[in-house]
């Protein structure tokens, strides 16, 4: 690909989705965009690029952006975050929301649905304990294609073997030919909608838990910081944020603090209070120690 063409796609992708593409990944543009050129009946990728320069068609741009996303995911990916959800976050929120009895969860880059459905299955398993509670799982992604897959909730043999315990497969899936169809009782627990993380978030409302995993890695620090800052306003003050294994808030935003004992778990930085008791030697440590001793104690 010519350098000038590379630059065109690079700035287009950055502007539309935040994706940072470096010159060593230029082969990815070739391999993923050639099929798009074909789909749009261009003679070649070069022909598509020419057209794009002249008349930037929004539908074509959308296809290009979607083609460049990485949708790699799996059920209960990395195990730990789901353990943290179940053993650490849920008990705290069940106590804190016992009047409201509503908990809102946002999966902010849900790909083909394995992440929100994993949460839904955990909640289903706890059905008896959660009688009278309302759980809303809102799952969003930038790609309509991947959202369609998520809604269909039909998975290959390979997909249902990565991370999914066999008991869950037996309970919550039906075998239809070569594929495994998630049952409606789980499917109906998740609501999907197209959402670009670069867009204003306020229409989504506020959440008690945000899963934003394995998407920030594709962005530069400025975009990461911007997304995390805006996410912090959508998260309740006592809410929880989960990031992917290779992601952190450190050096990117001061709106969140990592939980030192649970990798991937973050809470909102509480505004400094100017009361006498909070000043003095331990003002910054006192907030940390209160949350380690209170909320996150192993039981």
């Amino acid at each position, binding site marked *: 690909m010519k350098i000038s063409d590379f630059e065109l796609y690079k700035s287009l992708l950055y502007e539309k989705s935040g994706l940072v593409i470096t010159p060593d990944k230029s082969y990815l543009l070739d391999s993923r965009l050639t099929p798009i050129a074909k789909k749009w009946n261009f003679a070649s990728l070069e022909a598509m690029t020419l057209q794009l320069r002249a008349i930037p068609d929004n539908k074509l741009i959308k296809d290009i952006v979607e083609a460049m996303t990485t949708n790699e995911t799996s059920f209960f990916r990395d*195990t*730990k975050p789901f353990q943290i959800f179940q053993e650490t976050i849920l008990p705290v929120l069940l106590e804190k929301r016992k009047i409201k009895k509503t908990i809102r969860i946002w999966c902010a880059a849900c790909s083909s649905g394995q992440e929100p459905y994993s949460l839904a299955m955990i909640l289903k398993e706890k059905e008896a304990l959660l009688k009278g509670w309302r759980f809303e799982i809102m799952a969003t992604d930038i790609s309509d294609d991947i959202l369609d897959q998520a809604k269909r909730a039909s998975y290959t043999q390979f997909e249902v*073997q990565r*991370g999914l315990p066999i008991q869950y497969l*037996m309970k919550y899936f*039906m075998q239809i030919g070569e594929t495994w169809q998630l049952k409606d009782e789980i499917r109906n627990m998740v609501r999907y909608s197209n959402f670009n993380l670069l867009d204003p978030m306020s229409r989504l409302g506020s959440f008690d838990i945000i899963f934003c995993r394995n998407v920030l890695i594709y962005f530069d620090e400025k975009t990461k910081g911007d997304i995390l800052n805006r996410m912090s306003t959508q998260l309740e003050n006592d809410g929880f944020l989960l990031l992917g294994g290779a992601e952190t808030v450190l050096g990117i935003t001061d709106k969140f603090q990592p939980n030192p004992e649970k990798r991937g778990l973050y809470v909102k930085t509480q505004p400094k209070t100017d009361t006498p008791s909070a000043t003095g030697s331990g003002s910054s440590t006192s907030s940390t120690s209160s949350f380690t001793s209170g909320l996150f104690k192993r039981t």
Partner: protein
Amino acid sequence: MRTCLVVDDSRVVRKVARRILEDLHFNCEEAEDGQQAYEYCATAMPEVILLDWNMPVMSGIEFLEKLRQMPSGDSPRVVFCTTENDMSHIQRAMMAGANEYIMKPFDTDIIKSKFIQIGLIDEE
């Protein structure tokens, strides 16, 4: 070192499984059918058994039923690993006391993911 007994009548499958299991730091023993596996377990119970279904002499399911009757036969974790990929086989295996179930073809990721699930190894 912890031992995993691989029970499969295909030499190729045993070899592939061995490579994966050794990477996961298991000592690997092999059996070609349920009968051989049964005899192995009579002398020493492995920690894990990776078990094919269809084999000559004694099938995997028959072996599993016998194993669970043996003294300390409830201690090994049994992971089926078979081309049988329908719900009724899975249900039957779990009823007979299997701990997990892998549908062939398998790869490192799948074995690892299943072993993590039943607490045999930790997420790194």
